[in-house]
């Protein structure tokens, strides 16, 4: 495999990470909604924690996007 092809394959593999982060973000919001429906009174107070969890889960997907971009445009 020549180097250019290897870079593009690597960038494609990095996209798996973005998909995994999608599962993570879906899990964060899904779990929040599930428990918010059980106890709607406590839901509003937890919105800050919801977005902290969202930010943490999303960051890893964004990092895989950065890896893909670096492989295609920089390396």
């Amino acid at each position, binding site marked *: 495999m020549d180097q250019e092809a290897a870079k593009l394959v690597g960038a494609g593999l990095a996209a798996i990470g973005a998909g995994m982060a999608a599962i993570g973000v879906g899990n964060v919001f899904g779990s929040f909604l599930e428990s918010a429906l059980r106890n709607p009174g406590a839901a509003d107070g937890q919105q800050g924690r919801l977005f902290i969890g969202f930010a943490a889960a999303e960051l890893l997907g964004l990092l895989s996007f950065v890896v893909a971009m670096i492989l295609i*445009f920089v390396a």
Partner: protein
Amino acid sequence: MAAEAGKVDPMHQFTIEPLFGTDGWQVAGYNIPFTNSALWMVITALALLIFVAGGMKRELVPGRWQMAVESFTGFIDGMLAANVGPAGKKYVPYIFSLFMFILFANVLGMLPLGVIPGAHPFTFTSHFSATGVLAIMSFAIVLIVGFWKHKLHFFSLFVPHGTPLPMIPLIFMIELVSFLVRPFSLGLRLFVAMMAGHVLLEVLSGFVISGLNAGLGIGPVVSLLSFVLMIAIVALEVLVAAIQAYVFALLTSLYLNDAENLH
């Protein structure tokens, strides 16, 4: 990778160009021109100034505009009160400026100004040089406040209560690394989220154009589907623009909580 002829280059929108013939400007031996990024920062600051100035009339019965500004300040005030406590009151001006600046920049970058011939909208939050400086500012405030208030006791932030003695060196190193990574993750998150959204929109617009150029047959179907998807993604991107501004402000206030109250 350069774009082939007839294709839309999704990375071209992030090009930084000197404007108004300032590409020869020299400051202390460095070439520092007035770029399109700087222009959009100025536009964002002016829009923010107009927005806030319109709400400064301090009427007893607020009008719509004053209500809009006050709901934003109230939102930031509530966020700091919930995350930092009473000591968070003095950070409201900084967090408010940060939140509104990022929010306005993201939303202004999403405006469809590209349909005007000659206008080149630019989202400066899609550059790490801009978001990195914002992150460093937040991190510097955390460091200054932490060391000012707690002196060297600030290092107890890296050793949680009740850590067994043999574990302390290991935990200290882990907590130190996670602390030092904060400015990078803070700046990187905003920059990548905005950049990814804009690249996605550009790729989809490339599909629409290529489909229309392909002539009758499958081309227009691809174009129509891509266009519908693009509208949905634009709605998502407006949401992301607001969420990323909120997350930046929220994480900054959490880090300020560490500096103010330790554990």
